[in-house]
């Protein structure tokens, strides 16, 4: 019971909090693609792979008091930051601890911008395609974001490194 919820809490605790809903969504999706037990269903949405179930569970966890959501004023917009609470420690035990390699990967993802993670997650979403076809697809579905060749190269390198690190 609630193991999927507990896995989310453990993930956020391991990241020492995550700022930005988009960032959280993309980090969890990338983790799912790397084998982390993310059971929430993802679909392709406005910003790439997105899980309505994950959004719902985050809100539930905030209501339950196992996560805290704080608004951060960024001038033109508001960002939401998520962190664990003292009450979440027992609850988190419902989900098995993460391995060291995976914890490192979470840290590396957190360092990246949400724009970059959006690109990485979208490339993962089309990972059944050849590399050039993946790039073409990203240009079609995210034409307005104008990702550069350098960003693609960095994203592919990042994916390769994550896989190499046995995340």
């Amino acid at each position, binding site marked *: *019971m*609630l193991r999927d919820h507990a896995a989310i809490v453990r993930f956020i605790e391991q990241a020492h909090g995550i700022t930005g809903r*988009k960032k959280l969504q993309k980090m969890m999706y990338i983790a799912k693609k790397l084998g982390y037990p993310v059971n929430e269903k993802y679909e*392709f949405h*406005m910003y790439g792979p997105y899980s309505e179930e994950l959004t*719902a569970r985050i*809100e539930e966890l905030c209501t*339950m008091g196992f996560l805290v959501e704080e608004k951060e004023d960024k001038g033109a917009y508001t960002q939401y930051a998520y962190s664990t609470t003292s009450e979440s420690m*027992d609850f988190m035990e419902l989900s098995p601890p993460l391995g060291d390699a995976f914890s490192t990967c979470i840290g590396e993802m957190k360092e990246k911008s949400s724009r970059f993670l959006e690109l990485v997650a979208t490339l993962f979403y089309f990972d059944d395609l050849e590399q050039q076809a993946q790039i073409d697809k990203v240009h079609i579905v995210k034409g307005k974001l104008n990702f550069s060749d350098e960003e693609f190269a960095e994203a592919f390198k990042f994916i390769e490194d994550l896989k190499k690190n046995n995340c």
Partner: protein
Amino acid sequence: MTPYATQKLAEEKVFKDPVHRYIHIRDQVIWDVIGAKEFQRLRRIRQLGTTYLVFHGAEHSRFSHSLGVYEIVRRIIDNSFEGRPEWDQSERLVVLCAALLHDLGHGPFSHAFENVFSLDHEDFTQAILLGDTEVNAILSRVSTDFPQKVADVIAKTYPNKQVVSLISSQIDADRMDYLQRDAYFTGVSYGHFDMERILRVMRPREDQVVIKSSGMHAVEDYIMSRYQMYWQVYFHPVSRSAEVILTKALHRAKKLSEEGYTFTHEPTHFKSFFDGTFTLEDYVALDESVLLTYFQLWTKEQDSILADLCSRFMYRKLFQYIEFDPAKDFMKMRELESLFREAGIDPDYYLVFDSSSDLPYDFYRPGEEGERIPIHLLMPSGEIKELSRQSEIVEAVSGKRRSDHKLYFPEERLRGDTPAERRIRDVLGLKEV
């Protein structure tokens, strides 16, 4: 010779439909797709899964819903959009096919089945569209890349977002059909709204479909209908109880198979799902008639848990439930699991936590991931305004998720006089009989 993509039937065909009165077919491609075996299979998949155990009229199929979504999209593009410069008429066939085929990959009692076998019906929709199937053969006659185009619209990765939004957005043909169809077949009085009015005021714009502001009240009604249907029908706790039992029965059958159990009735159709070797052909061969046949046979199985769960489902001896606040009560779960074991009742199958959650309408928050494209109103001035900024009714439900948590259990098995059973009743708050 007329290209296949634009071939018309010699005479229009119609399907009589209780929701839209008639479904009109003129395109040869659409007629052929409806006749494909993968589409005909949808006749044997109920639109509302286990809901028929609560609302006995809810026996309608995904076949009729798919035809309904097709008909709504056809009316939008042929009646409201045709001739408007913002609408690209060359997208007509792809959006009609996507509307018709958007649910093609649903399996028997989809949610339970997907949960147990870790599947996603949307992957199967893609696989049927792009694989060696009758549907694919028909779509490929339009052009070699046509099946992929249809698949991309359904997967929401198609370049023309306006086309995608007709099938998938906060006010799309899918929802407009299922709300009315489900209301009709369940017999509830919610779920009704003035769809004709909404269709008349829909206008194509870049990347989206907008609603003329004069139609705002019809849209308000649609949003409230949706809200009511989720809580009165889709999340009905008794229907959830049936789904909990169905899920647990499939889990049990899978576990027994993994442990080498010899079934009295060999589960031929499920074997490849139990061991993970299934093919697309295996998947398409499954439907609710097949599943219910096995459930009927398994009521006589030697394994008492499988036999009991299947009997409960077939004869509607469902689990009882209590409200359960996971924040407050999650520690109780551990105690209950241990008490159930002490009482000789396996909690893995007989103590189930279940959550339902819905967000009636969401608006876009700049810089953040709202993700749901909001409903936009076209004002008389030509300005575009987001619905919840104009409608107080919609504003009242916007961004407000409602969740419901329940704990399910077989109450009649907890009526004994052992200390464990007495304590279970106490923890669950069950009245002494």
